């Protein structure tokens, strides 16, 4: 009480107009500090990002600007970086890997997007009780499992099963798709659950009050309204699948074949890069071509993101 009175007394010495006219220096400094701190954070981020982009881009386009290979050669199907000159080599065609990466990503998405969205609906709408208590923690744990573990499971469980049932070596597109599907499923589910739960209860009530059943409400309103969020989960999953190297490399077979069959060994951009980056000499054409592949990887990932942004942009009726 006394303190309060004192504080009041001191401020009472000045009239209101004096108080109000007092310069805001102290406040301004605090304002400035906050501004500067966040600005620094933003700039660190921007500088890092752009130097990364610059580095990859300059490295990636160097074999073309230095006339080591042509674009047509790079986008051809012939791969033989160690082929001798008598054989007409070396060949640096990366098209098979680009297609391999796309095939394994699309395959995994086609499998896990419907499964993941279905599971998210089940967990939020059909069985919210044990969905929340049991499934959600389990799925959050699954998100955190390192990819080498998924690859290892693929290698010891999925590859042999494919070998026995479908024939071939077991390594290949199918094994890659299965491993990646399992790997990105938790991401799609947990983002999807958040998206569905974010739909306000009033919307559901409005629908029930009109005589809609639970399933009608979920399928016609809740899921539709949650589509942008669900798609975000799918894109995150796709990006993870497209960029995944370790798990894929363990089960894909690593032969420079076209992804024409599900059970033949193929390669992806990531698997080729990880397998060969350490074995090539900096500055050689081979090494530079790997950088070009990294650039392609980056560009296609960006394309995914823009594509989905375009699809899920807020529609005006």
């Amino acid at each position, binding site marked *: 009480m006394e303190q309060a009175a004192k504080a009041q007394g001191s401020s009472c010495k000045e009239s209101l107009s004096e108080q109000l006219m007092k310069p805001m220096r102290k406040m301004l400094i605090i304002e400035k500090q906050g501004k500067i701190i966040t600005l620094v954070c933003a700039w660190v981020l921007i500088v890092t990002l752009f130097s990364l982009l610059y580095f990859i881009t300059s490295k990636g386009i160097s074999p073309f600007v230095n006339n080591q290979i042509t674009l047509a050669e790079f986008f051809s199907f012939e791969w033989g970086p160690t082929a001798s000159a008598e054989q007409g080599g070396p060949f640096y065609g990366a098209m098979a890997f680009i297609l391999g990466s796309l095939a394994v990503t699309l395959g995994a998405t086609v499998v896990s997007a419907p499964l993941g969205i279905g599971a998210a609906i089940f967990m939020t709408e059909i069985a919210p009780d044990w969905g929340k208590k049991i499934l959600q923690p389990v799925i959050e744990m699954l998100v955190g499992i390192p990819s080498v573990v998924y690859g290892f499971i693929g290698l010891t469980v999925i590859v042999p099963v494919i070998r026995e049932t479908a024939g071939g070596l077991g390594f290949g597109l199918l094994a890659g798709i299965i491993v990646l599907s399992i790997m990105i499923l938790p991401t799609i589910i947990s983002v999807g659950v958040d998206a569905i739960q974010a739909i306000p209860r009033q919307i559901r009530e*409005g629908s029930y009050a009109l005589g809609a059943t639970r399933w009608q409400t979920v399928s016609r309103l809740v899921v539709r309204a949650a589509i942008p969020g669900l798609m975000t989960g799918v894109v995150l999953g796709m990006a993870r699948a497209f960029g995944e190297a370790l798990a894929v490399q363990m089960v894909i077979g690593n032969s420079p074949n076209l992804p024409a069959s599900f059970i033949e060994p193929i390669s992806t951009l990531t698997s080729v890069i990880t397998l060969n980056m350490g074995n090539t000499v900096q500055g050689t054409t081979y090494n530079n071509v790997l950088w070009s592949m990294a650039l392609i990887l980056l560009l296609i990932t960006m394309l995914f993101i823009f594509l989905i942004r375009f699809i899920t942009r807020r529609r005006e*009726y």
Partner: protein
Amino acid sequence: MPQTITVPFPVQVKPKFKISQPQEKKQLRVQLETVDLHVYYGETHAVKGVDLPLYQNTVTAFIGPSGCGKSTFLRCLNRMNDTIPGARVEGRIMVEGIDINQPVINTSHLRRHIGMVFQRPNPFSKSIYENIAFAPRLYGASKKDLDRIVEESLKKVALWDEVKDRLHKTALALSGGQQQRLCIARAIAMNPRIILLDEPTSALDPISTGKVEELVQELKKDFTIAIVSHNMQQAARISDYTAYFYMGNLVEFGETAQLFTNPKKKETEDYLTGRFG
């Protein structure tokens, strides 16, 4: 309770506001009637044995301090409490000779006949047209029917002229008052017998409130209406019957004019005159 204080009772409460006068006595049909209705949320006993009729083509207002169970009671009438985990409703709710508070009742069909409008306007994030067509479409209305239903419903809530040029634009761009009238239109699109309104104007500005109140007067020609109101003046203006709830009990129910000017219970009078804790 010692009733020693000598209050000239019943007193004539000076009406500070317009009170709707009783309609000329005509044969009133009971549209819905609750019998000894109790609601529990887990341990909480939220509604304690309420017997209350809703008469056909009249407006019944539920008033009482907040938390007294008005919304809970209202939500029983179309079984919306089923959607709340842990809520338990006991007692009978008779509609045209059927007890609708039974597990066998198809709540989806029931809610077509007993529509509801909520405190916060809750349009779907669809177009204006689709908001109204939503429910009829669930029951297989054809495109031609839908067009007609949308137009009729919007005309009934006096929204048609305001929105007829942007039927296929999002409903979320409408003002709060327009959204609430859209929600009412959405409810009447199913041609229900009863419309339940839970404080439909408490999120609206005075002008929109006025429009909704006018609308309620229009609608009672076609429907039976129950409305929760946090505002006594509003209840007095627009209702034919009023029910006063306190702590989960129905304290008094009667014709609005009688209840407001000449309440039978002391508690009601205290509440109406503001002499209330």
